[in-house]
């Protein structure tokens, strides 16, 4: 009884202190931003930190829909399909007090197109950005680009005057080890202002009291202390002990533990990442198999049989502890082109699979090497281990090679694997992005992640035409047709959609963002 009272007292004390300190978001995740230069690195954690201080023209909210940031309206120009017109927000000031105008937008786009910029590929269709007046900008592309806004959600706007005054007109030469003023300082229009930063140790930001959206967003957090903590156990311990109150990169095995601790909770959402296996159907003979002079994966019946042998529900329940959604297509659910029907095309049928194998002439099975990363996706190696057993049921002997991502990914891009695991996220929320990288035949600047050897000229032409098709209905019909081929050819074996987990102290009103990119201005206090 006495113990129970002490516990209660302790809990009361804890919750009261939580209320007092709650305006400070003590936020931990496994990695730090690599630089603050808005255009030097195109990488998730780096963008996430910048998003608090800098703003693009448009951002995405937690449902994946566009949300106006520095632009208030945008539309293709009525008489010229090659031009997009952006109306800019008026009365916005940078942290240093400078006024935000069209000249800053023109400057930032030009900066992002420089050779050292890591954002240049995303906007390579842009040929010119011109200011019509102080608050109108026209973006000219090399052809009609119906999904241009999709590529702009991480393209941050800097102040021209500030950059010139501080000698940071050029993007930092990251590989060359250059440090510029913009690498360590930030002057954006965002809701939070940089106070101090020690790379890999701590970044502190405080609320921008003059933020244009002060009345529009909750802005309940007055100070952000961002700390990278690499070790999973330490990160969770820091949450349990109350040293941090918001955690990204929550380890799956500790979810029950956190939920069972008073005052802490884990929230989830489907992540913008699908996990699948690729099969090299293009090679005449495979390296890692026991069949000479033929490629069993070239036969669509073998590929179908392999897909049918995978029991996605078992993987979800046993390997992922419920933290995944079985997938039937290699697209996250909110992407344009995704359909529930196609995502459901993933039944398990061992007998049917065996029959298909026999029909293809591989009734006795074959052996093959499966390449798998062991430090990239949630439970990547255990998923592969499960697949080994499942494929064994239809006579395919799989030799698993699980290695760190730094060694795994070059195998795919260099074409040195026959059967591999890959995960894919779609930052543009449009199927074209998936087709460009995973379906189009491999060339030097397109199809770079397509390790299947699949190369269909008609389909490639159709994929290329998506970029400039302004008739959205016709474009969507094309997308559906391309997906039909991908599904029928069983180009990939989809496994599941990853689920994203964020842990937090109760009382924080945070909705999980499928891009794993929290924007603190949306956080509220309950």
């Amino acid at each position, binding site marked *: 009884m006495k113990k129970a009272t002490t516990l209660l007292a302790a809990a009361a004390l804890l919750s009261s202190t939580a209320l007092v300190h709650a305006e400070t978001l003590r936020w931990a995740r496994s990695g730090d931003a690599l*630089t603050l230069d808005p255009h030097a690195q195109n990488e998730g954690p780096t963008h996430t930190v910048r998003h608090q201080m800098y703003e693009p023209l448009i951002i995405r909210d937690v449902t994946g829909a566009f949300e106006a940031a520095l632009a208030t309206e945008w539309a293709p120009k009525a008489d010229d399909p090659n031009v997009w017109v952006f109306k800019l927000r008026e009365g916005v000031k940078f942290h240093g007090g400078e006024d935000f105008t069209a000249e800053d937008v023109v400057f930032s786009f030009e900066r992002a197109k420089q050779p050292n910029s890591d954002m240049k590929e995303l906007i390579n269709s842009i040929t010119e950005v011109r200011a019509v007046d102080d608050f109108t900008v026209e973006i000219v592309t090399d052809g009609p680009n119906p999904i241009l806004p999709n590529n702009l959600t991480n393209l941050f706007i800097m102040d021209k005057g500030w950059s010139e005054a501080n000698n940071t007109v050029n993007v930092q030469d990251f590989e060359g080890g250059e440090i510029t003023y913009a690498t360590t300082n930030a002057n954006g229009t965002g809701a939070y202002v940089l106070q101090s930063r020690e790379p*890999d140790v701590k970044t502190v930001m405080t609320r921008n009291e003059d933020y244009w959206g002060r009345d529009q967003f909750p802005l309940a957090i007055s100070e952000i202390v961002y700390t990278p903590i690499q070790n999973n156990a330490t990160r969770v*311990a820091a949450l349990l002990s109350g040293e941090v109150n918001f955690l990204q990169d929550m380890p799956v095995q500790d979810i029950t533990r956190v939920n069972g601790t008073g005052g802490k909770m884990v929230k989830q959402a489907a992540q913008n990442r699908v996990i699948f296996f690729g099969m090299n159907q293009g090679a005449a003979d495979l390296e890692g198999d026991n069949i000479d002079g033929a490629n069993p994966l070239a036969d669509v019946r073998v590929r179908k049989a392999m897909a049918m042998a995978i029991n996605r529900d078992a993987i979800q329940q046993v390997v992922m502890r419920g933290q995944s959604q079985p997938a039937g297509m290699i697209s996250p659910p909110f992407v344009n082109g995704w359909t529930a029907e196609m995502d459901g095309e993933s039944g398990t049928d061992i007998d049917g699979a065996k029959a298909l194998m026999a029909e293809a002439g591989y009734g006795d099975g074959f052996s093959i090497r499966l390449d798998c990363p062991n430090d990239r996706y949630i439970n990547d190696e255990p998923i592969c281990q499960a697949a080994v057993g499942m494929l064994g049921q239809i006579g395919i002997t799989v030799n698993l090679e699980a290695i760190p991502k730094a060694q795994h990914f070059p195998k795919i891009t260099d074409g040195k694997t026959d059967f591999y695991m890959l995960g894919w996220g779609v930052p543009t929320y449009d199927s074209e992005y998936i087709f460009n990288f995973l379906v189009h035949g491999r060339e030097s600047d397109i199809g770079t992640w397509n390790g299947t050897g699949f190369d269909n000229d008609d389909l490639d032409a159709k994929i290329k035409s998506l970029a400039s098709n302004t008739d959205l209905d016709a474009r969507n019909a094309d997308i559906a047709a391309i997906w039909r081929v991908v599904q029928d050819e069983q180009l990939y074996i989809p496994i599941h959609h990853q689920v994203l987990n964020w842990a937090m102290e109760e009382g924080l009103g945070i909705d999980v963002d499928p891009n794993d990119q929290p924007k603190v201005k949306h956080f509220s206090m309950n």
Partner: protein
Amino acid sequence: MLTFILRRIGQSALVLLIVGLVAFAMFRFVGDPVDNMLGQERTLEDVERLKEQLGLDRPFPVQYFKFLEEAVQGNFGVSYRQGREVSEILLERAPATLELAAVSAIFAILLGIALGVYTAIRRDGFIANFIMSTSLIGVSLPTFLIGILLIYLFSVELNWLPSFGRGDVVDLGGWTTGLLTASGLKSLVLPSITLGLYQMTLIMRLVRSEMLEVLRQDYIRFARARGLSDRVIHFRHALKNTMVPVVTIIGLQLGAIIAFAIITETVFQWPGMGLLFINAIQFVDIPVMAAYLMLISVMFVGINLLVDILYAFIDPRLRVAGK
């Protein structure tokens, strides 16, 4: 004597060169840094351009000699992950590691000697036996487990000490120290115990066995026969003679403390050189890995060289052979 020292220095340099060569031969198996650096939207042309720019397309002996050439001039290259000069990053990280190592070493030495003497003098006592058996834990449990157990107990359950980081640090002209703030000192406790526990038990066991050995010697018996007090016998006569091998071990273990800080730093998110190295391996940050490995081997080789030279001074036989 001079020939002896010169020969030793020559051998040390050779060891360093071989360490570097082996390290560079192994970097190829850590993976390809280019993928990490460019992100998924890169084209194959970007990959080729960057590989050429970084010299990764050349065979490893060439890369190694280029590294040596630059390193001799004090240039260790640019970190692939952070995009900053490696020497600058190492200098920034060194205070954290050295401070942690120093506090751990002091903890290990003071407590190790005290407990060692105690368990030797009271060798049949209950407490001494208890200390001896629990010290087995210190020797046999892996560092990361000790660290996590301490975090669980003192941070999560008792809420006394922070579970990660260095706390508030004070910058003294390029040297950041956590020794001057309350939160900095609190943050040092758990990592220092974790890092120093193994060394402490090692020193304790060594002091104990040496002390027991010395206490059996004739001159101790004579001292007792002369009627000297226990205090004088134990601390003036016995302990002094115990210290010779102990000091040697402490010297050699100092290097180990700095090198093995890698694991402790990872568990406690301690922003030192060890954590930097672990990050570098995951990202295949070759310049940082190379510089760190060379630094650690310079340190080990340096300590060994110093010990060798000291021995030569202490032991006349080595000096004669040298002549």
